[in-house]
């Protein structure tokens, strides 16, 4: 699993990014200040750092410079509300690998994370295309086709479908699904809604309910 360090002070942006990246199989460690971000980047192992420029304690450029000065070659993707060419050049010059101006498209961010992160795509088992029965799921392009017809899914719906299809022929417990997709068991009733929706799309019999255990994808 790709591990990303997110250094951003806007609480709500962090919340939705963390959530969104989780559904894309990306683990996010987040912090609000440059100082903590630098400490984390030095002490732990990450595949990528997403760095905001307007941090409350110091500029993102400073964090980046200090990081590079300490000899780290951690890929850094800069996230910023400053969009002038001057700032872009400054960011890239101080050692950033990529640059995303706010507001950005989540899909683009995801694509760039995948492109820049240390972990090569081929080694990532979560990116191989899965085909079970009449369903074809492409994790990289986030598409699902049923009988050759594309089905539009939200992030979590896709993640749930991915989980069930990758474990096809094996029972996935409710706890397992909740933990994997929502990261908490508190959303049990939502799981039912999602299973119902997936069945309406992939066929009622594609997902079997195993009483007292969980769900089984049969395709």
């Amino acid at each position, binding site marked *: 699993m790709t591990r990303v360090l997110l250094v951003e002070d806007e609480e709500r942006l962090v919340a*939705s990014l963390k959530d969104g990246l989780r559904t894309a199989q990306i683990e996010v460690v987040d912090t609000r200040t440059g100082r903590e971000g630098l400490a984390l980047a030095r002490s732990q192992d990450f595949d990528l750092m997403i760095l905001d420029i*307007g941090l409350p304690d110091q500029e993102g450029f400073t964090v980046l410079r200090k990081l590079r000065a300490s000899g780290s070659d951690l890929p850094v993707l800069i996230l910023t509300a400053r969009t002038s060419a001057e700032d872009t050049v400054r960011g890239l010059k101080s050692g950033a690998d990529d640059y995303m101006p706010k507001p950005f498209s989540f899909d683009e961010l995801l694509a760039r994370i995948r492109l820049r992160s240390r972990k090569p795509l081929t080694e990532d088992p979560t990116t191989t295309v899965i085909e079970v029965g009449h369903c074809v799921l492409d994790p990289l392009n986030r598409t699902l086709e049923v009988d050759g017809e594309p089905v539009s899914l939200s992030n979590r719906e896709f993640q749930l479908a991915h989980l069930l299809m990758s474990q096809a022929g094996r029972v996935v417990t409710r706890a397992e699904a909740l933990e994997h997709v929502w990261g908490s068991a508190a*959303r049990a009733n939502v799981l039912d809604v999602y299973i119902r929706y997936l069945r309406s799309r992939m066929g009622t019999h594609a997902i079997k309910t195993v009483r007292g255990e969980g769900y089984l994808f049969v395709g």
Partner: protein
Amino acid sequence: MRLIRPPTVRGRVLGYLVTLAAAAVAVAGMADYALERAGIDRKINSDLALRTQAFFALASDNDPATDEPWASAEELMRAAISQVIVSATESAVGHVDGIPRFVPGGETHLRLEDDPAFMETARITASADVVVRSARSDLREYRYVSVPLVDEEGMVLATFTIATDRSALIADLNRTFRAFAVAGIGALLIVGAIGWISVGRLLRPIRLLDQTTREISETDLTQRIPIIGDDDLARLSETVNAMLDRLEEAFAAQRRLLDDAGHELRTPLAVMRTSLELLEPRDEKQVAETQAVLLDEVAMMSRLVDDLVVLAQADRPEFVRPKPVSLGEFTDSAFARAQTLGDRDWSLEARGEGTFCGDAQRLTQAWMQLVSNAVKFSPPDSSVGLGSSMRDGKVRLWVRDTGKGIPKKHQARVLERFHRVDESVDGAGLGLPIVAAIAHAHGGLLELKSTPGTGSLFTILIPLKASRS
């Protein structure tokens, strides 16, 4: 296309200069001419009078040749005429029995005998009184004195005429003044040439000013006009430079405001976009949460846009419309409004009396902004005081809270746009800049005293003689 270029300052100044010099030369010349002519006439008159006196003296005396009385009128006239010293412009004629008998000899002098018409006129007009007369013939203009020699019965025996060729003298004078005119025109040409060069040199700063300001308006605002010398043109250049400073500053401020605004709007936009992209339509709870987040962000952006509009207006003259405001009533209404903003221990610390000139609406906005800040940064039921005063030529409007105060390192920056002391508290960091802008538009300022842990005192200071700075 204009065929005639508008006159330049250089051309005009030179025009004035040459015209004035020409007028001076002309006036001096004409005055001198008149004086010289009068002098010529005076000299003619006195000369003629002197010669006539000499004739009288000769006539009343004996014949110097015989030492006897004059034998005849003819003898006297011969002697008189031979005594006359002639010149190019002066001569005499003696008539005997009505016939011009004697004229001075010689070649180079005035030859009256060539002008019989004049000789006749002179003989006819002879009178016993010495009168200088004028006569004009075809040849010249004369001034002359003609006196008769009469016998005991009053019969005219002879006439003695002494005459001056005035036209020749005036022609001499005219020649002199023609030469003067030529010299004058030459002098004017020299004045013009020197004037053209020195006026051009004098106006060089203006040309430079024109050229530089043109370049500046065409290219960028960072250039300045070089200051030459220490005169009023140099001061003009300094004034233009100062104006350019202000322009550049205003443009920079505008750019910064736009930059800041863009920066501040992008972050909520990023939150909104990401939230919408990651919306789970089948997850009702998440939909409700996202809706709340989005509405909140929209409200925040709306406030931000409103504040930015106020700040952008603050540089315009119509931002405040000052009218006489009664401080006492103004304070009462502000205090009443303040109390609706939160549950605090409200107190009116002072109520100023008198009338000042200000925009009551903007000042209320500013004061209420300070009050809402006080409410935001103080615990419920803590005391918040408002007050106003008018003394030392200043109106003071203040808000005192007993909240957490402002940390020292933030105090200097708290008036900067988008500076927030506490990121967790709602707001874009435009409140105090707006208050400061309103105070500034009244010619005043916003004063801050704050002790961390004890509270803050914000005072809007407005000079009584309000003038925009």
